[in-house]
């Protein structure tokens, strides 16, 4: 503890023996941690380790079943977020707590306990946002902002209340690598002013770069504490997952014929707050994985629905196995040999209250499960049992309902189902989002095996590390436009990061995008 440099300060927050049980899982079991003024304290753990639940209890969103919370030397029961805010605790959520149809100042006004006149509030917003290098316009509507800008609104909203403790839940998942560095600057400045920061993440590099101290969670329990800068990624990972981080190996392989070709696809989003696709072209060949990176909300969803057939486009813009497919619906594209794994598992990839066997029927009708319009339950059963076995899906059998599975196991089932439909082209969105390390490893390996069998695979992901590990080629989507593709070995995180802010290509309409990017950098420096 002495090395952390806070030994002489009284703790600001002390958690002791915090326990929270949910019907099917113990989210936190006897968790204790303490944080001092000006300390940046990481809460490290993989998905499902209980980080978010712990933070929600500190912020008063949920209540612990057992344990104590001490704030500035006083025992407190934090009953509601409003009370947490009054005490001086602010939180920036992973999934932002902003209202899209309202303006920035309205969003901020809603979180204030006392009414403040609009003009006064607006000037306060401008003042604070400029002071900390987080420029925002108080009168803008939130839905018109990028996710990075929205995060600024969240942070400014917290800062206006002059917090003594700021909780950041996975804040970098929505930022480009360059924007991450800017955020770190802001956080260090806040810490220097005496604000304590709880930084929740599963990204080891970031924690080593930013945090003074760390508490590591595994399966809801504290598995260790550390001074991150004295640790290596490997030693932190051991604490986090209780073993070594396995690495994917991608043997070089010659890509063969074109399986998917998208030519100059432009498509207006039906969602008024969505992103339209602009002039997207790409090819995926047999035996290769094309990875598409990008900050969320830049057209990934729209690209996915256009490729899956949930939205139709002119026939010739999308070619599947050489055949025009833009006007084919999802079922017709499946018949050609396409399968896909959507980002949203429960409710899109699987029907929550239906059994796994019925969920096999959802996309597997052509595998003999339906003959002359009549369902054959035995074929459904056999198929789903095979998926459960081969992909090590932990469940009560093929009659378990989809909603009873954990996120990782459901994803294994969906990836397994789509794999065992023997695709020739497969599209996967966010393959390992919110999935535990073991399942993530299994899923990545399954994709690589499929590639080695000659299937063409397109992966859309927000995890850059993942894309660098499993892609033969990488492209970036930004504001509905797609960058040229490059081999991971021939590029760098920095270049991909620059592309993620929209700076790529040399056509005329790129100038606006690059101007924007310059502005962001300039603002960040201010």
């Amino acid at each position, binding site marked *: 503890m002495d090395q952390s440099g806070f030994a002489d300060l009284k703790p600001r927050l*002390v958690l*002791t023996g915090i326990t929270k049980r949910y019907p099917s899982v113990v989210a936190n079991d006897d968790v204790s941690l303490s944080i001092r003024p000006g300390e940046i304290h990481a809460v490290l753990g993989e998905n499902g380790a209980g980080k978010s639940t712990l933070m929600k209890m500190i912020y008063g969103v949920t209540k612990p079943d057992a344990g104590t919370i*001490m704030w500035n*030397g006083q025992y407190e*029961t934090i009953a509601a977020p409003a009370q947490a805010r009054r005490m001086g605790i602010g939180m920036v959520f992973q999934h932002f707590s902003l209202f899209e149809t309202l303006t920035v100042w309205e969003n901020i006004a809603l979180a204030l306990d006392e009414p403040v006149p609009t003009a006064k509030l607006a000037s306060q917003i401008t003042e604070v946002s400029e002071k900390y290098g987080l420029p925002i316009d108080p009168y803008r509507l939130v839905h018109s902002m990028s996710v990075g800008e929205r995060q600024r609104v969240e942070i400014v909203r917290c800062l206006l209340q002059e917090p003594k403790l700021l909780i950041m839940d996975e804040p970098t998942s929505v930022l480009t690598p360059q924007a991450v560095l800017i955020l770190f600057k802001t956080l260090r400045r806040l810490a220097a002013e005496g604000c304590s920061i709880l930084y929740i993440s599963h990204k080891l590099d970031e924690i080593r770069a930013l945090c003074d101290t760390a508490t590591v969670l595994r399966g809801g329990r504290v598995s260790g504490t550390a001074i991150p800068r004295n640790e290596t990624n490997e030693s932190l990972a051991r604490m986090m997952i209780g073993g070594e981080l396995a690495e994917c190996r991608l043997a070089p392989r010659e890509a063969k014929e074109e399986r998917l070709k998208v030519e100059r696809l432009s498509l207006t989003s039906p969602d008024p707050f969505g992103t339209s696709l602009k002039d997207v072209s790409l090819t995926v060949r047999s035996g290769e994985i094309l990875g598409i990176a990008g900050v969320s909300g830049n057209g990934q969803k729209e690209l996915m629905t256009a490729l*899956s057939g949930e939205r139709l486009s002119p026939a010739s813009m999308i070619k599947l196995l050489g055949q025009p497919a833009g006007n084919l619906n999802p079922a017709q594209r499946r018949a050609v040999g396409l399968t896909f794994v959507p980002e949203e598992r429960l409710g899109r*990839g699987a029907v929550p*209250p239906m059994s796994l066997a019925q969920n096999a029927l959802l996309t597997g009708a052509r595998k003999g499960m339906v003959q002359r319009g009549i369902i054959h339950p035995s074929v459904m059963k056999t198929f789903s049992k095979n998926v459960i076995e081969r992909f090590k899906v932990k469940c009560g059998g093929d009659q378990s309902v989809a909603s009873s599975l954990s996120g990782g196991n459901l994803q294994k089932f969906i990836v397994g189902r789509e794999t065992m439909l023997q695709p020739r082209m497969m599209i996967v969105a966010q393959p390992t989002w919110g999935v535990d390390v073991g399942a993530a490893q299994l899923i990545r390996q399954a994709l690589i095996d499929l590639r080695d069998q000659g299937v063409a695979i397109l992966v859309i992901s927000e995890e850059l590390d993942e894309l660098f590990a499993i892609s033969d080629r990488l492209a970036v989507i930004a504001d509905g436009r797609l960058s040229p593709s490059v081999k991971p070995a021939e590029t760098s995180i920095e270049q991909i990061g620059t592309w993620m802010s929209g700076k790529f290509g040399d056509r005329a309409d790129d100038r606006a995008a690059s101007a924007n990017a310059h502005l962001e950098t300039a603002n960040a420096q201010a």
Partner: protein
Amino acid sequence: MLKLERRATPSSIMSVASPLLAAVGMLITGFVLFKVLGKDPVEAFYLFFVKPVSTTYGIGELLLKTTPLLLCGLGLALGFRANVWNIGAEGQLTMGAIAGGGVALWFGDSESAFALPLMLLAGVLGGMAWAAIPAFLRTRFNTNEILVTLMLVYISQLVLSWLVHGPWRDPQGLNYPQSQGFGDAETMSILISGTRVTWGIVYALGLALVAWIFSQKTFAGFRMQVAGLAPAAAAYAGFSEKRNIWIALMICGATAGLAGVCEVAGPIGRLQQQISPGYGFAAIIVAWIGRLHPIGVVFGALLMSLLYLGGEAAQMGMGLPSAITGLFQGLLLFYLLAADLFITFRLKRVAPVEVNTLKPPVRAETAA
């Protein structure tokens, strides 16, 4: 302190038990209501629920009223399962009656063996045509089917009213707003002698079986169920939303239209201003209480039919308004909705959290 907690998996026991719980809740409320109204509840219950079906004729009446409720309920249940909120079965029923009745009037005194089959066909088509309007507007113009189907109920009733007041009015009918009575060839034959129940109930039960096979065994039925449970999953799987909407509305239009023509070709025997005491609306409750399951709908229709008979008996035997039927119907649906909660949730006793946190253990004190 009791708290609601989501079950890990929905309870299948509760999903069967909940309609029974709802019926019990309705009976208890009815008991209190009769008491408040100064009637002897036991006698009232006997009069309401037992006496109407204590004779063969009474059983016949029960089955007679079950027919339209079951037919409409089957169609609605299939639609509700697919998230198609057709609440205008009453209008589709009316249109079926008008179309079938129109054919009957066209045949007039003819003895043709084609008259009745053509009437039934016309009734089915009339109901489908009326249901095609919301289907078209929803699939083509994204227009909410709840409001459209309901508005079409009022319009269909006005069309009927115009016909029986105007062009189709019986000239020898003493100015009553009704058509000529249908001849024998245009009337359905009686199933059980000594009652008024027609072959309609047999058609309805047969269709319940068909609906059961459709929803449990066919891929089309599965697609509609997915559309109801998770519309995004249906889109992902490539199940056409438009096709599901059309199927749902066409099936309900057909069954409700059949119900309408069975009424005019059966117990009513002519077209008149009112041909249904709200069967199409009561069928919404029938569908719900039957768990949107074809076999459940059969029982739901029987129960609802009994409520109609009871209401009539209460009017005659106790001087209570027959509107008591509507009251019981609404109560039943309320209780059912409330009881359904326990399919996905359960009550759990939890200790108040404050107890733990207000008395901190001593070791925490020293650790700090």
